[in-house]
């Protein structure tokens, strides 16, 4: 496959964006998991579906938009969804989790309408749902690079504040941190990563790349720094093994990446169990 990567542009695009996503999704995912926001990531991916389906429908029905990259409307939908979730969480202060089913069903509802209007499932849409090795364009790759730059700048600027907010929100507020604004920015960046990851992993499986490597890392890491390092390592392993097997077995990469992540997770659970029984020295 290494030779093919150098030979074919579509493989270069898929592999490069896969490696970038394998880095930024688990990196941000560590904060998503420790802040107990994993389900919000899932809700946002469903909202992205509405944006993608809407864009596919518009490109069919409006001539001028025929060449519009669906990723743009996907990003707009995801970011808008993240802002709505925050609004709903404040509106239902005592039932914050209600925001998730509301936004998730809104996303799926609009998605279903646009898919029907576009007269059914196209192979293009299948690629968006479960990921695709062949469909990543050079333009998609540039969008992913742009999102990665935003994520890295955001985390470099707010790393210590995000740590405090994740660990002890009340303490963060008492310390005078602008908790609300940092949280809103965090949600927007999360929405961007979800929209950016879906070309490779697919809308329905995108949140798993943010949570499964982190779940595995948390089983065996002692510090926050180690959790981040291991999450990224497991994310990259899942993407590399997942993409190679998807290419050779002609499978959707979303599926192979997620199954690889599950295998890594099971191995870490098993190693922890063996360690606690004294079979493996730790």
């Amino acid at each position: 496959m290494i030779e093919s990567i150098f030979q074919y542009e579509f493989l270069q695009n898929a592999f490069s964006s896969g490696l970038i996503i394998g880095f930024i999704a688990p990196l941000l995912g560590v904060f998503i998991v420790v802040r107990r926001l994993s389900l919000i990531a899932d809700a946002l991916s469903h909202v992205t579906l509405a944006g993608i389906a809407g864009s596919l429908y518009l490109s069919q029905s409006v001539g001028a938009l025929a060449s519009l990259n669906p990723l743009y409307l996907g990003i707009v939908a995801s970011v808008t969804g993240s802002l709505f979730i925050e609004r709903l969480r404040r509106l239902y202060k005592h039932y914050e989790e209600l925001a998730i089913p509301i936004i998730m069903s809104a996303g799926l509802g609009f998605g279903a309408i646009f898919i029907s209007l576009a007269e059914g499932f196209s192979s293009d849409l299948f690629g968006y749902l479960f990921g695709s090795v062949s469909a990543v364009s050079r333009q998609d790759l540039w969008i992913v690079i742009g999102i990665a730059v935003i994520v890295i700048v955001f985390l470099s600027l707010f790393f210590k504040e995000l740590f405090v907010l994740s660990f002890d929100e009340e303490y963060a507020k008492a310390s005078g941190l602008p908790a609300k604004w940092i949280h809103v920015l965090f949600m927007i960046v999360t929405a961007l990563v979800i929209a950016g990851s879906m070309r490779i992993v697919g809308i329905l499986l995108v949140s798993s790349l943010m949570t499964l490597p982190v779940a595995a890392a948390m089983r065996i890491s002692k510090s926050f720094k180690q959790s981040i390092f291991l999450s990224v390592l497991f994310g990259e392993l899942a993407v590399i093994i997942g993409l190679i097997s998807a290419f050779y077995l002609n499978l959707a990469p979303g599926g192979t990446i997620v199954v690889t992540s599950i295998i890594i997770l099971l191995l870490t659970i098993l190693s922890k169990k063996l360690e606690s029984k004294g079979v493996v020295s730790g």
Partner: protein
Amino acid sequence: MATPLINLHNISYQYEQTKALIDINLKIEEGDFLAIIGPNGSGKSTLLKIILGLLKPTKGEVLLFGKPVPQFKEKERIGYVSQKSNSFNTGFPATVTEVVRSGLVKKIGLFHRYPANVNKEVKTALKSVGMDEFAMKNIGELSGGQQQRVFIARALISNPNVLILDEPTVGVDSKNVKSFYHMLSHLNREHNITIVLVTHDVDAVSKSISHVACLNKRIHFHGFKNEMDQMSDEQLEAWYGHAVRKVDHQSEVKS
């Protein structure tokens, strides 16, 4: 006379229909070790949240170091240790060092990294609470009392003038409660840190404390600890709402 570090003027607070605090006037001076005691629902935690600026009073004004709360920007001068059971995420994958270091977040400010000598500062803060040998442990592996000491170290790392603790001994076993108050007393006397402590447990009011404020929506008593010792149990019961038994923790610590 020096400006009080914390000065509450006619503070009232109302949660929808319920009055939580009524006309509270309280001055906390430098070097005080004040215990705010009162039964459950007496407004103790609400009062702390108002002092910390987490809640806005319905009426009245809070001055911190002589400045009204909205204008007070030096939050690092006030260390806060919240009620453990309410706030911290026990499954969090962080070491004691990472947690204590995060106490510098406000002092350093946005967009800046921790200084190169941060680990030395962490060590000093952990030493002052007797936890330096636990620096690399995972926070979730520690007992309730040890975790509270780590949170005090997190508050101390920014060299605060005042330490505010909300029910710090909830979930701490009685043996460790004694040494915990002993440590607070040491911080108050040797490091000249003003301490404000909230508790519903009258037993917890030990001889380490210099002042007591008895709160049940209103301040029923504020003064020196020994003045309160002279109060009869009947007087205490009158505002506490049920039978009260005074226990001297300090003498137990010394024994």
